[in-house]
């Protein structure tokens, strides 16, 4: 069967490779097959390496970037840290609740806090966000009660928040579909004089879906006020990023004629700065931007997943050194912008939040059975009403007499 492709390297070889490259190039193991291709077309020999916008090193040192300045007060920095810490706590608590059987499943954001808070805090009131199923951090920034999200994963509904009021769309589980919704919504903003822009979230795996690429096309052709925010957490469930692309994802945008940029997704300041700028460009009529937030899924894909089947612990260890929360904490401490009391207060607030979540989850009522007939249509159809009535009569029968079983 061989064929032309290189023989499969073993798992340990892959990981060795990855780790070697990891040292040499912190921005990922991708080389540039375009540059070295023997067929030479115009503009096919970029010499620059993927550039990663970073404002805070993994060690918590503040660095400058020529294009992306940010100047935040101690309070603002503390607020960001609070966000990071609290959404992590929500996540930890939800994961625990799933383990205890309270939730059907949970999709953890562990490791992606900075990407989500940086993006979420770049949103302005008129903007509209389109999440996948993992953007609990963005939801937090939009003021969504974590219980609404937990309810979804518990199976009581598909998300209890009001997507119009909160300007945070419902979670979309079919990979990539929401990117087109974001473009359409942005086209609506163009047409009704809206002042905002859309921020569309998706993963590295999602970039392979036709829908996401069509979203790029529509956005570019219509100059739609939308920013595409790809959290490249290195995996689509078990598949490493190499199964989706040959080259860094941010470069996809150039093929569609709009800017793409890679940002250190574990650096909340850089994500905030880059997203702000892209959203501002979108709001002011300059069309779409693709942001690739380069990050890492520190947990399993969901609580149903077992990452030990497909990745090595050492990879995780390397990424732990880049922990987004620790990074900001180190900076706050190092620069004297937060003291022990601050962190203790956050810790206490986290504990409270966790306790509230635990209690509210366990007490969350099941939905009314007949509610499943509601909202299929704006007004129930006669035939569906008949099904509902039969169902209700059938249910009533059970409360009266003993069941067959």
């Amino acid at each position, binding site marked *: 069967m061989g064929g032309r492709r290189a023989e499969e390297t073993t798992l340990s070889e892959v990981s060795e490779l990855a780790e070697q490259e990891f040292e040499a190039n912190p921005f990922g193991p991708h080389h540039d097959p375009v540059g070295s291709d023997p067929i030479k077309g115009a503009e096919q020999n970029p010499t620059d390496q993927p550039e990663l916008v970073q404002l805070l090193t993994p060690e918590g040192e503040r660095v400058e970037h020529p294009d992306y300045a940010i100047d935040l007060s101690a309070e603002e920095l503390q607020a960001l840290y609070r966000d990071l810490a609290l959404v992590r706590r929500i996540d930890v608590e939800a994961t625990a609740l799933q383990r205890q059987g309270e939730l059907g499943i949970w999709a953890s954001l562990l490791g992606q806090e900075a990407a989500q808070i940086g993006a979420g805090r770049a949103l302005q009131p008129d903007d509209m966000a389109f999440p996948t199923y993992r953007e609990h951090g963005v939801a937090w920034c939009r003021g969504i009660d974590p219980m609404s999200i937990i309810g979804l994963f518990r199976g009581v509904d598909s998300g209890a928040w*009001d997507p119009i009021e909160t300007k945070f769309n419902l979670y*979309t589980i079919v990979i990539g579909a929401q990117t*087109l919704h974001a473009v359409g919504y942005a086209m*609506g903003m163009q*047409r*009704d004089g809206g002042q905002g822009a859309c921020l569309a979230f998706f993963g590295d795996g999602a970039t392979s879906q036709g829908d996401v690429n069509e979203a790029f096309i529509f956005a570019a052709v219509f100059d739609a006020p939308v920013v595409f925010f790809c959290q490249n957490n290195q995996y689509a469930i078990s598949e490493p990023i190499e199964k989706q692309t040959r080259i860094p994802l941010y470069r996809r945008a150039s093929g569609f004629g709009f800017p793409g940029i890679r940002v250190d997704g574990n650096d909340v300041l850089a994500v905030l700065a880059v997203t702000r700028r892209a959203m501002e460009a979108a709001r002011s009529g300059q069309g779409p931007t693709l942001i690739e937030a380069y990050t890492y899924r520190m947990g399993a894909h969901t609580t149903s997943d077992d990452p030990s089947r497909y990745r090595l612990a050492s990879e995780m260890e390397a990424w732990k050194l880049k922990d987004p929360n620790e990074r900001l904490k180190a900076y706050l401490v190092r620069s004297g912008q937060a003291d022990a009391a601050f962190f203790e207060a956050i810790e206490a607030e986290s504990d409270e939040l966790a306790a509230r979540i635990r209690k509210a989850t366990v007490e969350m009522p099941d939905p009314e059975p007949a509610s499943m007939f509601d*909202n299929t*249509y704006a007004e129930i159809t006669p035939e569906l009403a008949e099904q509902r009535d039969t169902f209700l009569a059938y249910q009533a029968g059970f409360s009266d007499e003993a069941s067959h079983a």
Partner: protein
Amino acid sequence: MNTVTLGKALNMGLRKAMEDDPKVLLMGEDIGKLGGVFRITDGLQKDFGEDRVIDTPLAESGILGTAVGLAMRGFRPVVEIQFDGFVYPAYDQIVCQVAKLHARSRGRLPMSIVIRIPFGGGIGAVEHHSESPEAYFAHTAGLKVVACSNPVDAYWMIQQAIAHPDPIVFFEPKRRYWEKAELDPDATPEPLFASRLVREGSQVTVLAYGPMVKTALQAASAAEEEGISVEVLDLRTVSPLDMGPVLDSVRRTGRCVVVHEAPSNLGLGAELSARITEACFYDLEAPVLRVGGYDTPYPPSKLEEDYLPDLDRVLEAVDRSLAF
């Protein structure tokens, strides 16, 4: 009163809907300067501008996906799918998003989208241009599915569909685009989700929709000459079905034939047969019979006359029904 073709009636209906509600947008391939390959949107971009009559990139999923976003924002997108066979790239957006977002959001997200699909055969076209995919949509909870059969209905139904809050797949009988009728724009239209008795008869009920209504009526005329009295109903709405008039009729005649171009297996005839039989079990003199396309891909056009139900096949089924 003017005499208009079915295609022109749709064009007039679309224009009226756009005048009535500034949130109505048209989207699709070639609907702008060209006016659509069937000219249904002729002149509308000129009068309403490129922002409301949008020539989209050639990507059906993109069209439906952006229509979803526009609907969320309060617009009422009316999407044209160029031909029946090209709706499938958008199937995911239709089934998982358009159909489900109202329920997913517990009614918070409006999803007022009309998906216009010229459907059916008989125009001598190449592959994928003559299909009847309505059952796929009727089986999908959250969607409504209607089909017009004549210019007057076309004019009213398209406006009603656009004004309706739920997503509607709107089937247009493409081979009847050039059929004419008198249209009175001041008349009071019938409701959208109502079937209509179009010819009274006493012995067999024939159910049809879209292009097959004309065929059914022709069959009824031919039957009359043979002394057989056939009643014809134009279903108009395919999902939800308007069973009232259907059951009334079948209870009277005791016999029923369902006609559609779509393949028989799991076509609308199956559902109608199941419901009618359950509701009229003791009234039926014969099983509900089905006249449909065969369970093959739509054939090359030189064979379409053999493939498509015609008045002879309808009459043959009427005879079979009477023979029970």
